[in-house]
């Protein structure tokens, strides 16, 4: 059988982001895959050394527009550790709220894209319709639909007052009801979705550990790792249990994300109700000095920032390791042997965020 090489990307409607997968096909079976990256590299790590360390929050936020708040949060946690700033408790709870808000919107976006990659257009539309409710909450509380821009070093920029918290709670409940009534039954029971996802892109627990998979990719294979367990921001107070599935296929990863959406809604409501009164922002004096690390859980997995400062306005080094970078190797295990038609489903099942990976 003749081998065909399909250039999957860098421009492809199923993968909105420019990553190229060179798929070697035998008939319709994938025998080899070669991810080619670098189309979206901007050099943010270098730019972060050129900018004032306070301005870096905004550039870090724009590493990835989907989980922008969590990038800003990770940066701020590290910068606060270096400048020895104690963040007020109310700000920590607000940070949990916005983190979970961006996680919800990221997971919904992903679930929609998955449905789209399977050709299930009406489900895609339904999920994105539900997602608009989350974006409305974001616009109401943070002033923008996707890039919240509320986290800065020393706390947060916007407060959520009692009235707004009540409104948010109301909207969250409405959102949950929509999930329950229209989306969850389809995702959980639809036979065509199961046929496309169950058993596709198998990743065993051993392989996940060996390849260093993070986030829902590893949790779908039964590895219960979630950085929120470390209790950064206010996760310790809010309380948290990771969502784990054991099957290790694309469907398990779908279920992890679908269940996490529910968990996020609960966490958001908890964070709002447990939020103490007080300051939301403290003044930052002093400049970053020494070294620091900060780890957070992005919708896609563990995000690590490494900082080195020398007591000036600028950082000496900022190193970012994003979850997709850790998850791409798993594609090399999952893709070979699958059918061409399953490539989008399997590739999407790690939720690749190329903008994060290449920065």
């Amino acid at each position, binding site marked *: 059988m003749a081998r065909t090489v399909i250039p999957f990307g860098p421009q492809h409607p199923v993968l909105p982001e420019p990553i190229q997968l060179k798929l070697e096909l035998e008939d319709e079976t994938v025998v080899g895959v070669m991810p080619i990256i670098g189309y979206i590299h901007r050099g943010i790590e270098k730019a972060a050394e050129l900018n004032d360390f306070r301005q870096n929050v905004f550039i870090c936020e724009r590493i990835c527009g989907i989980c922008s708040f969590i990038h800003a949060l990770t940066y701020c946690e590290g910068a606060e550790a270096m400048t020895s700033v104690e963040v007020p408790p109310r700000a920590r709870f607000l940070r949990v709220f916005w983190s979970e808000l961006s996680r919800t919107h990221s997971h919904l976006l992903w679930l929609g894209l998955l*449905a789209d990659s399977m*050709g299930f257009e009406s489900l895609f*539309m339904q999920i994105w319709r539900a997602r608009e409710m989350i974006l409305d909450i974001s616009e109401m509380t943070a002033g923008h639909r996707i890039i919240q821009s509320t986290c800065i070093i020393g706390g947060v920029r916007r407060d959520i007052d009692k009235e707004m918290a009540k409104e948010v709670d109301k909207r969250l409940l409405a959102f949950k009801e929509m999930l329950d009534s229209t989306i969850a039954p389809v995702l959980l029971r639809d036979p065509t979705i199961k046929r496309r996802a169950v058993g596709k892109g198998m990743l065993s627990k051993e392989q996940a550990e060996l390849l260093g998979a993070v986030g829902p990719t590893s949790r779908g294979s039964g590895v219960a790792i979630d950085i929120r367990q470390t209790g950064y921001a206010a996760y310790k107070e809010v309380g948290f249990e990771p969502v784990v599935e054991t099957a290790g296929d694309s469907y398990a990863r779908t279920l992890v994300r679908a269940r996490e959406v529910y968990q996020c809604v609960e966490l958001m409501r908890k964070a709002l109700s447990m939020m103490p009164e007080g300051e939301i922002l403290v003044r930052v004096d002093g400049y970053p000095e020494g070294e620091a690390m900060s780890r957070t859980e992005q919708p896609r997995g563990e995000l690590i920032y490494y900082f080195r400062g020398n007591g000036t306005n600028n950082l000496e080094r900022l190193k970012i390791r994003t979850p997709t970078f850790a998850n791409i190797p798993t594609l090399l295990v999952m893709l070979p042997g699958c059918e061409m*038609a399953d*490539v989008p489903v399997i590739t999407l099942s790690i939720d690749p965020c190329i903008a994060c990976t290449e920065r």
Partner: protein
Amino acid sequence: MSTGWLIGSAVIAVIVAPLIGGLLRGIDRKLTAHMQGRIGPPIMQPFYDVIKLFGKERCVAGKAQLVFGYAYLTLIVTAVVFFALRQDLLVVLFILFLGCIFLAIGALSVKSPYSQLGGHRELLQFLAYEPILLLAVVPIALKLQSFRIATIFESGQPLLPHLWLSFIALLIVLAIVMRKSPFDISSSEHAHQELVRGLVTEYAGPYLALIEIAHWYEMVLLLSILGLFWVVGSLWWLSIIIALGSWFIILIVDNISARLTWSWMLRFTWVAGISLIGSNILFINLGWM
């Protein structure tokens, strides 16, 4: 029926079929949008698309592809003419198949891997529905002792009560020809697919418009074949309702299912289609239907 009348109806069919096809596509897009909670494009949208495509700059990957594209359109139109002339149903189907083969060959005649894969899948898709479509004619012939469409019109007996099993098998064929989920493997209506409408990737501008028009003819022809199941008797208008009803069912199924893979499609259409038609033939032979 006089020859003049028949030729007149053939001319009308050639002119009206794409109009009906385009209109149905427009309503299809509108209804699909409504099912998804959207407003959707205007009903005349397919015509705007096609006219716009005629105004685009010409671009073709290879002369051969162009020839195959034209051959596809011509053969489909010929099939429609033969249908309107009430000729042999088998001839109509074979001309239709030939046209579809030319479409696949057209896609295979260029080097683009997407087009190649699309062509392969089109052939597989063809392999899936061709036997069903052909076999579905057999019970009609068994019932009426003739393959001629004119005989169906003259028989005085609606076919559906006897052949509803074959009718269901034809619904599967309709879904495949309309490229709807779960069978939209070679080129889906929307380009959000791994092959980016692989089949027509290399057709652009006016040539894409030709393919689109041929597609409208194809859909109308299939719907007319479905309509044949009730063309006689006082309730002759039921044929139109049957055709539109089956078209609507396909729309619903499209919106409630995901795209499946070609291997599943081949298995499903063969097992379901052949067993439906086989039992239909059996029942006719046993005199139950």
